[in-house]
């Protein structure tokens, strides 16, 4: 009896152990949803599409994107980039390659889930946004690398896309156009009106992007042609075109028509928030006049400009990435680093208010005194560049922000608010950029600037219209078309309208050249310059062989004020002569552009990047495919001459 009890108890205890354990193996994620159960509702698709909106190069993508966001290395900016100077060699990796394909995978996952979606909800909105981003990312790759593998489905480890050849640029363009056409159809009910232009991709944004792509590829084919394609077997992708493919005229016509659609839709308008200051209490109101262009790029809440305007006043933006001081900071250290600092060339590209360039305008005041070249100029000049010995709010200031009720000019000449150029070491330009630099010092010292990043603005649409029209007209464009488009942009800049009559007296000025000039000025520091120079086929002429320069310390053999000026805040000379040897200052007149309408650089300008480092050539039109990727997949052929 006792024995039985004993055995029974042993059996029970062992049995209990064995029986309860099999359930230990059935576990499921406890703190996240799974792919199996997701993508069942419109809401979930929109959440996934919301994520795609973050996957673009805007603020907040780390310092890697600095170079491409701000036109670094190009002719109009005094910030270097080996890839744009042309001094780089093929790298083993390229973050833009890997990152973009990672983002494309996410896009394709959403499209694939949408294609298999059988629910009742209408998911065309998020689907259209996904198609937009697939086009966006492929266009980015096209500009950087030319033809690339087309990622139009979620790839498996053994997929052809992963291991195959690069598609030709024409196949990539066809994919982009096709995806944008799909996006335009699917976004027919997702418009600026329905979204409130809240940063989501809209029908208008898709049209605007398509216009941008068409102008890009139309002009590329016209001016660059197949020179960067390679043969497709040993280098590059070859020049295979899809059976149905637009002509150059076709592209340009699409660009013109689409930009007209966007303009005529009248959903957008140029931001003119700080033409004059109207808010009472602001001291020295004229001090801030005509600076809409400056404040537009720093638009946050009411404290970001003297007119107390917030982001809602921005009707200019067609596609923007939204940032917010509380919920999504920019984290780019913009005001400290002053990414958009101009080169000598850009300074001279700005027109005088009469619409004429510095070499022709009677209004131009020359270079003798530091402030002279700022007089009678395009308003954008003052919005982009600090004027010497002037007072500014902003980075490094001890107050908590701009206090517009205080008259800045009453401040003492200490370095706190007072801007003095500094030419302490060779390489410095003497100019300091302002674009993207907030006046709110409280938001600039910790990289907390949180203005929106504008990917597509209305002025670009005007510029696309003008350029496409002019190209279609073989260099001519009617005054009516100019007034319909580009002159609206010039009007905000306080520059006289462009017309055939205006340039007629000057044989080296052309309408196309002036349209291109306008594009450089309006879109300065917005990441478009290098692809513009390339698609025009002039990047070598405009970029190579000439130094990047800064201020004139002497002009026409006469020393300018920069040589002698003393900074009253520290009683030091602005110019540290010992730091600038003969090779740091230009010694002869140098042409810096293929367009004769742009002023030549004369002797006496300080050099920030020497001519020998400016070696951009035709091969640099396309960046090299990262060599690790070629090793992994030998079917990828390197771009020509890398």
């Amino acid at each position, binding site marked *: 009896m*006792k024995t039985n009890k004993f055995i029974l108890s042993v059996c029970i*205890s062992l049995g*209990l152990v064995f029986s309860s354990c099999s359930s230990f193996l059935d576990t499921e994620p406890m703190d996240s949803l799974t792919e199996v159960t997701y993508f069942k509702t419109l809401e979930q698709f929109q959440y996934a599409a919301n994520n795609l909106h973050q996957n673009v190069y805007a603020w907040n993508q780390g310092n890697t994107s600095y170079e491409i966001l701000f036109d670094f290395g190009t002719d109009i900016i005094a910030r270097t980039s080996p890839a744009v100077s042309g001094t780089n060699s093929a790298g083993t990796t390229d973050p833009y390659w890997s990152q973009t394909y990672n983002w494309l995978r996410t896009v394709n996952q959403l499209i694939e889930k949408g294609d298999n979606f059988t629910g009742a909800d209408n998911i065309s909105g998020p689907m259209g946004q996904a198609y937009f981003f697939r086009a966006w990312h492929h266009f980015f790759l096209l500009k950087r690398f030319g033809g690339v593998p087309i990622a139009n489905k979620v790839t498996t480890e053994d997929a052809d896309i992963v291991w195959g050849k690069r598609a030709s640029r024409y196949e990539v363009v066809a994919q982009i156009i096709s995806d944008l056409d799909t996006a335009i159809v699917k976004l027919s009910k997702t418009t600026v009106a329905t979204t409130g232009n809240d940063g989501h991709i809209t029908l208008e944004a898709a049209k605007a992007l398509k216009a941008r792509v068409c102008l890009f590829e139309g002009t590329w084919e016209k001016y660059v042609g197949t020179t960067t394609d390679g043969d497709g077997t040993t280098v590059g992708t070859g020049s295979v075109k899809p059976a149905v493919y637009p002509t150059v005229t076709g592209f340009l016509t699409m660009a013109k028509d689409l930009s007209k659609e966007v303009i005529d839709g009248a959903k957008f308008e140029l931001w003119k928030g700080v033409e004059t200051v109207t808010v009472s209490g602001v001291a020295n109101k004229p001090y801030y006049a005509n600076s809409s262009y400056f404040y537009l790029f720093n638009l946050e809440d009411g404290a970001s400009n003297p007119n107390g305007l917030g982001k809602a006043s921005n009707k200019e933006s067609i596609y923007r990435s939204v940032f917010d001081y509380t919920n999504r900071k920019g984290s780019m250290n913009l005001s400290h680093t002053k990414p958009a600092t101009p080169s000598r060339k850009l300074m001279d590209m700005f027109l005088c208010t009469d619409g004429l360039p510095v070499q022709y305008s009677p209004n131009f005041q020359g270079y003798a005194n530091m402030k002279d070249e700022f007089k009678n100029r395009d308003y954008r000049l003052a919005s982009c560049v600090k004027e010497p010995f002037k007072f500014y709010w902003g980075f490094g200031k001890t107050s908590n922000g701009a206090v517009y009720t205080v008259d800045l000019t009453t401040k003492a000449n200490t370095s706190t608010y007072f801007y003095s150029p500094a030419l302490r070491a060779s390489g410095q330009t003497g100019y300091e950029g302002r674009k993207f630099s907030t006046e709110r010092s409280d938001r600039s010292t910790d990289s907390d600037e949180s203005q929106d990043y504008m990917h597509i603005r209305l002025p670009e649409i005007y510029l696309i219209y003008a350029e496409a029209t002019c190209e279609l007209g073989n260099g001519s464009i009617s005054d009516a078309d100019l007034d319909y488009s580009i002159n609206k942009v010039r009007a905000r800049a306080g520059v006289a309208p462009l017309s055939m009559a205006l340039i007629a007296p000057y044989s080296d000025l052309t309408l196309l050249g002036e349209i291109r000039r306008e594009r450089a000025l309006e879109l300065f520091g917005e990441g478009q310059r290098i692809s513009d120079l390339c698609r025009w086929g002039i990047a070598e002429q405009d970029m190579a062989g000439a130094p990047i320069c800064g201020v004139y310390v002497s002009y026409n053999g006469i020393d300018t004020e920069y040589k002698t000026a003393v900074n009253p805040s520290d009683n030091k000379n602005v110019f540290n002569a010992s730091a600038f040897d003969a090779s740091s200052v230009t010694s002869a007149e140098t042409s810096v552009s293929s367009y004769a309408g742009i002023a030549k650089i004369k002797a006496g300008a300080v050099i920030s990047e020497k001519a020998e480092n400016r070696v951009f050539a035709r091969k640099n039109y396309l960046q090299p495919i990262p060599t690790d990727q070629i090793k992994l997949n030998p079917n990828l052929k390197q771009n020509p001459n890398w």
Partner: protein
Amino acid sequence: MYHLQSNKMMKILKLNLIAVLKLRAVRFNLLLLMMGCFSVALSAQNITVSGMIKDSSGEPLIGVSVQLKGTQTGTVTDYNGKFSLAVPANAPLTFSYIGYTSQTVAAQPNLTVVMLEDTKNLDEVVVVGYGTQKKTTLTGSVTQVRGDEVLKGKATTNVAAALQGEIPGLTITRTSSRPGNEGTAISLRGGISVNSVSPMIVIDGVDSYEWELSQINPNDIETVSVLKDASAAIYGTRAAGGVILITTKRGKEGKVKVNYSGRVNTNVVGKRFPTATGQEWALMMNEAITNDAVTNGGTKAYWMFDEAQLGKLMNNESFYEKINMGTGNLTQVDPTADQFDAIYGTTYGQSHNLTISGGNEKTRILTSLGYAQDRSLIDVTYDGQKKYNFRTNLDYNVNKWIKTEFNLSYDNRTVTAPTQGIGQGIQDFYTFPLINNKGQYYDVFGKNNVLAKLVTGGASNNREELLRLGGKTTFDLGFLVKGLSASANANIKIRNGLKIERQLSVSMYDWVNENGIGDVTGVAYPFNTFKAISPSENWVKNTYQENLYQSYGGFLNYDRGFGNHNISLMGGVTAEKSDYMQLYSYRSGMADNSLDDINTGDALTAQATGGSNDWGLVSYLGRANYNYKEIYLIEGLFRRDGSSKLSPENRWANFAGVSGGIRISEFEAIKNMEVFSNLKLRASYGETGSLSGIGNYDYVSGISTNTTVFGYTGTKATTAWISQVTTANRTWERVATTDIGLDFAVLNNRLSGTFDWYLRENKGMLIAMTYPQVYGATAPKTNSGNFKAKGWELALNWNDKIGKDFTYKVGFSLNDANTEVTKYNGAVAITNGYKNNNPNESGTSWIEGKPLYALYVYKTDGYLQDQAAVDAYYPTVNATGSIVPKQGTVNALQPGCVKKVDMNGDGKITTDDLYYLGDAAPHLLFGISLGASYKGVDFNLFIQGVAQQNIVRDGTMAGPFWVGYQNQNSTFLGNTWTTTNTSARYPLMSRNGDRNNWNYKWYNDINVNNISYARAKTMSLGYSLPKLLVKKVGVENLRLYLSADNLFEISNVKDGFDPESKVASGQGNMDVFARTFSCGIDLTF
């Protein structure tokens, strides 16, 4: 009567469990501790033996086991070494005691037995998986050390750190000597995968985390046993990295024994990190800019200090001037400012342990209490840990057939560390005082005042509480089948972790002169306050973690001899489940610096996240042992594991191992030679698995969500994405280990040793293959690689006595392992630096055919000694695509630069010219132990070291002006190329990024330190008061000792670092290793 007691037992158990059960609904299969009432009758015709047991010095021995041979009848000696036992006359009585040779003596009414110390320990019992085995018949490669021998007296209370070098084949590295933050890593036999697979840690039969080694009280540890070969197969899926079994002390029969051991220790700075003084920095700066001026056409590019200021620094002169080339503020500059001395110094720690143990035939108990407190070398603020340990191990024999064991332990450890400034103090050069003339923290730029950060930057408190509860019941079923027994166990472990991190914004101030005026022009210049109030830097983060682990097991054992045939069988089932959850909260903008509660933060900044997961493992296991006359030994092991971490179709796997041995010394012919006291040949083969690298739910793709903003006022909107690519086609890494070993003892056990050779092969190593990036994601890890490790271990011990009182021992161990990634599916581009596990990177690349930590560098052929050599070199290596700094620019190569060899002769230097230099794993690891005792005096020395290792450092201190605007590694000063030192150890000093890349950052063979070192890990001198003396005051044993940890090291590291320093040498990575001196007392009464 038994009934009554068992009910009491149940109550105690229940009481303790209730607390646990209340915490949450636990499927806790409480053991049924059912007991019967049985009694035993002994046969008649007995005599009563009264005896006394002594050791060789005549001291009575307490707790010696006295047993009638071949029966269960027995007792133990009491406090006076006496016993009495009723046994048949002349029956053989066996006396056994751990550490002494067992004896069998015929029973007589009065017996006095002198036990002899067992120097060979051949009867030692070794803890193996799910049981114990006699060392004599052990066939696996198992090393066991006794806690009291290797852990006691060491100042560190981190068991992992204390075991460093003690167990051949077990590589323990640490990156720091900061208590609570030692950064220990354990690997067995060179590792077995590119995934770092650590050994499985099992404490008293319960699966444990590696960090529990720093949690547990070292004084509680009876033995540490390491299963290194097929013997680990009994642990199946998780044993690929070997198994470390820790067994805690249990009460023994005998009078109650109380042991107190206490220690105070002082930590002093060992080797400083090699930062330059202000003067050295100036000299290096001057040398670099002078060198750079050569290619600049003669202009020295001064930085921060102008020529005159640099000159003053080089002359060790202080000054108060505008710096930053005249554009900065007035600044106090003092070349004698020393950030190192300002923050490091001597600190103190202590530890106390009280252990009470005792028991009788029926009940045995051991209870211990521990307290330890220790600090790092940072003496300006508290950086250290406090530990409280409690343990009770209870054994209760319900009756002759039912034995129970009960373990309860509670550990509480709080690690406190400054939130800011740890590992810093190398960014600013040592030219700026840390305190200004107003007594404030001084900083001119960069907010780098390390003292201010450490002292006023806030601290984090990480408290881990661990409650372990375990019960085991063994049923002797011998009455059914002789030799049969069954056991069941249940364990739960509750870990609560609460980490409170507090950061305070640090105020640093510029210099002001005596009048509060800071400008030569006389204009009032308000001194700058950096970050005095920045709400976002003033935060609290609370992280709460809770982990409940349960495990259950049921086993059947059969153990019986049939004449010369001995059979032992074991079979069982185990099941484990772990549930984890965490909560994290954050607020910034704290109302006041004195309060750390999150409620005092700005509610608008609040963040909270959660997270939870679980996993389960069910296993069936078995073991069979057979031996013939204890000469021919064979063992088989089996385990079948099912894991919730894998998809149902791949969930189950089987593991098995087999081993055999021959005790050659027991052959008559060998015995007659009288040479070998022991000679055993062993061999084993077995498979183990590893789940490292597999997440809990990796076979399903999760959806991650977050938020972004839209609209004009930053409205939050949800974002969602598929978080990772998964695969269901994945299973365990499987490691096959072959081991051949030889154990021997000669010269009457004076010299003994063990040699093992092994081969470990991982077939189906989990690796994330590198796909072309067009794939767009990190591919999931699949069983796509193979891996191999080969190595050997040697341990030699010499034990002897000179005269009556002087005993001494010498131990030596040496081991080495070589690894190789034998298969890796997927091509990879070779870049310079570490491959196959980069110690600095999480993502890394794998090279087939090369070992772990393979090191790729450029081969150099001396220096370019003059401009002619530079000019001649360029055309040979400068073809398109070359990484050579551009000729004709300021970045160009110049004399003193290395001459990288164009290995493939393609006219350019590219990554294709990298060559495999060797691996960076430690090789020829050795341990030397010396011990001697004379009368009451004992001396021990343990030396641990590495005979060969390649190290190439990364970060600020890895090369001169690696970062051009930071402090420098002064060991480069005077050791770089100059026109007068053309065969210097290192290339020329430069601040040019391109030249530094060429000479230092793109590693060359000459940048590799081939190091070896020996470190005096522990040295101790003890004195035990004569027993006869102390006994008069009721004390059994009293030992006083002095010891030193890490007293000295002999190393050939040339770049100024401690041999154990990290590869990363940048700001935030600096650490100083401590030397620790302790004095302690060990008292038993």
